[in-house]
């Protein structure tokens, strides 16, 4: 039986993609105490559901600082193990908020041709980049700059964040241009019927897949902004003379963040796959058109997200 994608199906697809992109967008706000100036224009609003989680986050925050002290005082591995586990949980929960690359990764995977393992790779590249970046920034401020850490950190992360938004805008723009110019061999006739000249893209053959270089680019752009929580815990460990505990904590927080980002990336990949599958039953150019819509939408949101946040940082 010949079936063409219905309008309802396309609307459904578009709604799913929009919901996914919009849900996770938003910028991390500056620290009101130690930054200079008012709230960021692109700051995300507070949600009732996160208010429910606030006591959990608070308990974790307090526990991390307490455990850092226990690590110094105790020679048993207990506090260190607990510190590692709570850091992991903190990373997972914390990355559910805005920032931390969820919009970037989800829109990136909508625009790219990727398998589930690619979202795992992206998640862990982000974790790696984040851990290295947070450690590098904190250690530089602590040992080399030696000024007031809390204000130094705010200025440093603002610069890094601006650069990262700029990089995201550039990546988004490049992808968008590629998707808009994308090679297409179909010839639409005047009767609204598409003749399909067989080529790789249409037949689940081997469409060009995302490369490691691209995954690393997106991970670098989104993971490089240090999480204030992770940085505070390294600082606390430094001032207690247990740097090793700080390194363990930040690595575990980064892995937790990577896990969350991997899940978000996987959802994007599965949504795209589901939408393409739903629209490809039967013949015709439906699947190809839907693929184009999904990919252009992903790249376009990524570009707009990077650009608007980049501009908001500068003004």
């Amino acid at each position, binding site marked *: 039986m010949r079936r063409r994608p219905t309008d309802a199906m396309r609307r459904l697809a578009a709604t799913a993609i929009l919901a996914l992109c919009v849900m996770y967008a938003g*910028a991390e706000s500056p620290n009101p105490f130690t930054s200079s100036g008012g709230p960021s224009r692109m700051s995300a609003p507070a949600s009732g559901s996160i208010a429910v989680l606030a006591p959990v986050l608070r308990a974790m*925050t307090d526990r991390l600082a307490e455990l850092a002290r226990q690590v110094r005082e105790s020679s048993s591995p207990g506090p260190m193990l607990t510190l590692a586990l709570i850091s992991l949980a903190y990373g997972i929960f914390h990355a559910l908020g805005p920032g931390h690359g969820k*919009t970037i990764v989800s829109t990136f995977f909508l625009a790219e041709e990727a398998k589930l393992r690619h979202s795992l790779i992206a998640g862990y590249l982000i974790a790696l980049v984040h851990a290295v970046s947070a450690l590098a920034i904190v250690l530089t401020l602590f040992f080399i700059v030696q000024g007031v850490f809390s204000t130094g950190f705010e200025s440093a992360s603002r610069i890094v964040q601006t650069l990262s938004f700029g990089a995201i805008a550039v990546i988004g723009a490049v992808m968008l241009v590629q998707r808009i110019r994308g090679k297409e061999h179909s010839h639409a006739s005047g009767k609204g019927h598409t003749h399909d000249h067989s080529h790789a893209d249409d037949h689940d053959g081997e469409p060009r897949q995302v490369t490691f270089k691209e995954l690393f680019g997106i991970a670098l752009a989104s993971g490089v902004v240090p999480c204030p929580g992770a940085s505070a815990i390294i600082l606390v460990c430094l001032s207690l003379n247990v740097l090793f505990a700080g390194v363990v904590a930040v690595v575990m927080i980064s892995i937790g963040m990577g896990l969350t980002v991997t899940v978000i990336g996987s959802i994007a990949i599965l949504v795209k796959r589901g939408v393409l599958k739903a629209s490809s039953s039967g013949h015709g150019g439906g699947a190809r058109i839907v693929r184009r819509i999904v990919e252009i939408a992903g790249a376009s949101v990524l570009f707009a997200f990077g650009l608007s946040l980049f501009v908001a940082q500068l003004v």
Partner: protein
Amino acid sequence: MRCSSRIALAALFAFVPVFCAYAHPHVFISNHVAVDFEGTVLARVSVEWTFDELFSQMIIADYDRVSKGSFTEAEAMALKKGAFDNLRNYHYFLAFFLNGKALALPPIRDFKPTIKDGRLIYSFSLPLELPIAAKPAELRITSYDDTYYVAFDKTNQSDVEIHSADAVAAEVSIEKTKVKPEWPGQFMPDQIVLRMRRK
């Protein structure tokens, strides 16, 4: 799909609002509020914020460099400049409503940072100078950060103290914010509600 329609599609998606996510807190405060009356005047509201361990230790490491365990005058000044004064851009996380009308935020007085049990505490007061009449008045005090970088712990009745209310009948309750939220699911903090009248 033609190139022009692809560009139109891209433009359409570029306008997807990109600030709809919900913020999450990094700093946690337990709030303590004292209301001081002088005769029939509500003279001032004094606020005491006790911070979470992580933020406490970061700020203490930054500013308590000489004395270890308390702030010298110079350290307190530096701290005020580096980790408090910027809150003027955030209305010091405070809003006052008298009988439903917003009050202008009074100047901040007597800022003092202290350390207790390893926790950083900020205390300061706001001279409201509100004369209380025989007609009942309702003062609502809300503590919240619009950006939700900072989360205030749930306020309990025991976190509010009333001092020297001999000439005034005052009653405290903790109530939900009445304002309609701007976004679905938006977090609305509880308010301290003070109902008072001259005796």
